[in-house]
């Protein structure tokens, strides 16, 4: 799955912050996602051991929830909001431009591992449509002709 060998303590540090109940599973997986930019297989196995929950169940959660990814993501994440307001105001053109310029399809990661391009169904910032989020930063009123410059300016490449 990945060449990164992570020792169990990295996962334990996150797991320890939560109560040992199944209620905590999703939150822990989300923390894995934030920390490692994906949910590593080793993490699922460790969580399964500590929580005494079958790994298959945790894996099912990993495939079900959009916020979780089982494969490594790019260094930077670009999320194009495809909510209704953004759709009407030109999100499809923003997405196409990014796909064309980055040479990657939606939900894919560029070959150099720099960017992952994702779509998100409404981030609730409809008044600024169309919205694109680069890493954690929100950009409103984005335009196809300016989007690549904006991305490059933020990540400094």
């Amino acid at each position: 799955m990945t060449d990164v060998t992570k020792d169990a303590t990295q996962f334990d540090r996150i797991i320890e912050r939560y109560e040992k109940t199944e209620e905590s599973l999703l939150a822990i997986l989300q923390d894995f996602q934030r920390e490692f930019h994906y949910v590593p297989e080793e993490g699922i196995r460790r969580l399964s051991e500590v929580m005494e929950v079958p790994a298959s169940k945790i894996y099912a959660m990993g495939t079900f929830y959009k916020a979780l990814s089982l494969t490594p993501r790019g260094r930077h994440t670009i999320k194009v909001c495809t909510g209704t307001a953004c759709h009407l105001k030109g999100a499809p053109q923003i997405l196409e431009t990014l796909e064309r310029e980055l040479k990657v399809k939606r939900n894919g990661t560029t070959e150099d591992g720099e960017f992952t391009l994702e779509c998100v169904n409404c981030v609730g910032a409809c008044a600024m449509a169309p919205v694109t989020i680069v890493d954690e930063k929100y950009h409103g009123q984005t335009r196809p002709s300016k989007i690549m410059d904006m991305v490059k300016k933020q990540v400094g490449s």
Partner: protein
Amino acid sequence: MAAINSVEQLEAYRRELASAAKPDLPTVLVCFGTGCQANGAIPVAEAFMDMVKEQGLQLNVNIGFKTTGCHGYCENGPLVALRPQDILYLKVKPEDVPEIVEETVKGGRVVERLVYRDKVTDEVVPRYSEIPFYKHQLRIALRHIGTIDPTSIDDYILAGGYAGLAKALAMQPDDIITEVERSGLRGRGGGGFPAGTKWRSCVAVESDVRYVMCNGDEGDPGAFMDRSIMEGDPHAVIEGMIIGAFALGSHQGYIYVRDEYPLAVKNLTAALEAAREKGFLGENILGSGFSFDIKISRGGGAFVCGESSALMRSVGGDVGEPRAKYIRSVERGLYDKPTVLNNVETWANVPEIILKGAEWYASMGTEGSKGTKVFSLVGKVNNTGLVEVPMGISIRELVENIGGGVLGGKKFKAVQTGGPSGGCIPERLADLPIDFDSLTEAGSMMGSGGIIVMDEETCMVDVAKYFIGFLVEESCGKCTPCRDGLPRMLDLLTEITEGRGGEEHVAMLEELCDLLTWGALCGLGTSAANPVLSTIKYFRDEYDAHIRDKKCPAGVCKALITYSIDPEACTGCRLCAKNCPQECISGERKKPHTIDTARCIRCGVCKDVCAYDAVRIS
């Protein structure tokens, strides 16, 4: 300060806060909602804080400063409100700050270039309360948003917070339920089920454990009122839930928040801690003997988790797949215990209903839909943002008076309500009152209150395709009609938008709609037909134009449109040619350009960059 142990102590504390407060102190309020932060509110706030420090030291002038929740007028952010002058400045930049402090805070004069200017009359409107966007509003669920600092429990208490709880704790639990029943409050999350009835049926079930839950998994694209409330007034939701828990005899609550709302999670978490510290949560709340606490559960980015049974499974640490609801969640919900799940906006209304009474609340709205509703007015409309108005206002009033009409003077075509479970209502029905029942009758639904305005450049077949595409992605795949029916519907709609549709396509769509309505397991599937059926019903001519004439009248569907340059309007500035990714625009400088339509990929970049509006779509 230590925990507050009685209602008397709460009132004493409130008086203490009031005597320390200086209502006449010039106060700068910077909106710190997601929208304004994205538009650059943080540097603006920093500039103010620097000025406050500097000026305060040099001139001994006291200036109050706070960051608030979302004012709802996000399009014009960063927003800065000034008190006591009641002035609202729009699109404020850090470099405007010295002028604002000098002119307005100290001099009491208005900086005209920063105030609202009416797009039609060009009149300047400096007063917050007179701006058309706010003038027609009646704010109950949004009562504190934009005026209090959501990270300060003292601000909430000073504004009258937790007085509803204090009153409720002195009431009989049963009377609280009666009060909510009599208020006519209906669930703000979508279905509009009467909240009091839900509570009543939950207490009727015998159980040692009950749960109260708040659905903050606001998934309807185009709706963001719950985000705004959770970010801007988290204590209102918490107070509502404590009252509900007391009425229902519940000791554990959960707030399920979308993972896409990081600021809401942050502010709610801080608010819960503050409420615990002050004694509004935990053991023996306000000395009443009643104990209750709330946990936050973060969603995982799955739309279906807004469905009650899926949400409860997700909270329990499982995949969020819905179950068949032969037994309702008020009987067997979270961990198979009786559970009341209400939406964020519903909970935020509860403290006011208890405090001011059912009659007061029921005096607003329509016969079947009481009170006010928060709408997010977005799409092709001049003033976009959150609007709270009494139920029963007409679509036209909302779009034209509050929304300031359709963007760019284009023709108003339709509004879409209810997200992927709702439908499109055409302009000719715009005098329809907005309430739960009228919208359902018109083939749409209230949903969580997203009102998406569409103009002549919106293709209704594309809208239907958009929603079905959305639902295909979000379907959990548990039941066959939804898992397999939706992709077939998407295929049919795609064929129509690509000019490959035949007369039979519409009939096949209708058949699949029927199948989903009757056969799907949960609300996601059973309501999925609405976007398709409502557009077929009201915009059949557009379907026909795509199918018979192979044309997209709105100029949206790529396979059916061509881009060209109007030689009259083109100045030959070469900007489009320089930006065209296909390099298929040619022409000499200062002479009209042409597009090689064979190579054009219809990406829209030329139209986007053209300063002379010379690019045409036909």
